């Protein structure tokens, strides 16, 4: 399951960021496909990106001055969410894939849980509200436009996928990089280092896209079910790197559908699939 999942993750990351000319010239794709949002956190300023980041697009519309609430982006996020939930985090997010790979690096002690872990999970909802919705809508400039606060101050995916390659390939951008670039680089390095020790720290504590998809997990068409074979042995809980109890809450908002619990269950008590009845 892990190899299959990583293959899908790698394939999707490559396909959705395969605009070769952008990688060669340090520019970005400027075609009509950019009006379509990708399901995962994928910066639209990544030189290879064919589509838009849904969180970036949400902030762009919210801060445009013309509209505050984006029906278009909320609709697209809802279509993705109601169909797949956080399956997208587990299979179709390039930044999630990078964190998965980083966590495979051996370290003396991997941390599965710590004091305050549960409380810290709510931080991503605060980030969603404050940095993705409220600040772009209400912290506006003289012409009524708001900045994409999440992209500007937090998003490590933007730094990794767009900031680092563009600054390396473009002298003008390199000359313009200042304290904000250094702050975002610091955040990225912190998340990279933490990812080696903690499984997907960005997804667990900071990602507003994961927060949105998590709300859809209990109602999405794709879901997990625990059947009558379950003996509550908790082996699935021990296997879960997202720190949930799959045998109690198989559709918990933190579940990224990685399938580790299915693999760990000796009784085949957890099933996955699309809801039919």
């Amino acid at each position, binding site marked *: 399951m892990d190899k299959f999942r990583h293959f899908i993750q790698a394939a999707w990351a490559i396909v959705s960021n395969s605009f070769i000319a952008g990688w060669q010239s340090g*520019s*970005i*794709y*400027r*075609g*009509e496909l*950019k*009006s379509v949002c990708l399901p995962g956190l994928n*910066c*639209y*300023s990544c030189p290879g990106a064919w589509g*838009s980041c849904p969180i*970036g*697009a949400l902030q*762009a*519309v919210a801060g445009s001055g*013309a*509209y505050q609430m984006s*029906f*278009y*982006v909320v*609709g*697209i996020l*809802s*279509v993705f969410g*109601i*169909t797949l939930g956080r399956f997208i985090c587990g299979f179709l997010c390039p930044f999630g894939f990078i964190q998965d790979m980083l966590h495979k690096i051996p370290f003396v002690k991997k941390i599965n849980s710590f004091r305050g872990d549960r409380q810290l999970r709510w931080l991503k909802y605060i980030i969603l509200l404050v940095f993705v919705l409220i600040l772009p809508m209400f912290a506006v400039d003289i012409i009524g436009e708001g900045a*994409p606060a999440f*992209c*500007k101050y937090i998003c490590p995916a*933007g*730094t990794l996928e*767009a*900031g680092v390659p*563009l*600054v390396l390939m473009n002298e003008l*951008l390199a000359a*313009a*990089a*200042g304290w*904000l*670039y*250094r*702050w*975002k*680089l610091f955040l990225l390095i912190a998340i990279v280092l933490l990812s080696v020790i903690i499984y997907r720290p960005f997804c667990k504590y900071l990602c507003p896209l994961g927060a949105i998809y998590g709300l859809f997990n*209990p*109602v*999405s*068409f794709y879901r997990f079910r*625990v059947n009558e074979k*379950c003996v*509550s042995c908790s082996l699935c809980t021990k296997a879960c790197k997202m720190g949930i109890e799959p*045998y*109690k*809450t*198989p*559709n918990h908002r933190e579940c990224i559908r990685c399938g580790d619990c299915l693999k760990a269950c000796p009784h085949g008590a957890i099933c996955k699939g699309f*809801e*039919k009845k």
Partner: protein
Amino acid sequence: MNKQKLFVSPWFSCVILLLAVAFVAFGIYRGEMAVVVQKAINICLECIGIG
């Protein structure tokens, strides 16, 4: 066994899906796609940590 009994009718999910599609259509109708594409085809200075 303390399993969560959470029954969600697929009809509820279907209603949300229909609503979501209606949102997308309404967003396109009022021209939000143009805002998205305009932002996305230019290098986002905020995203890369310059703006």
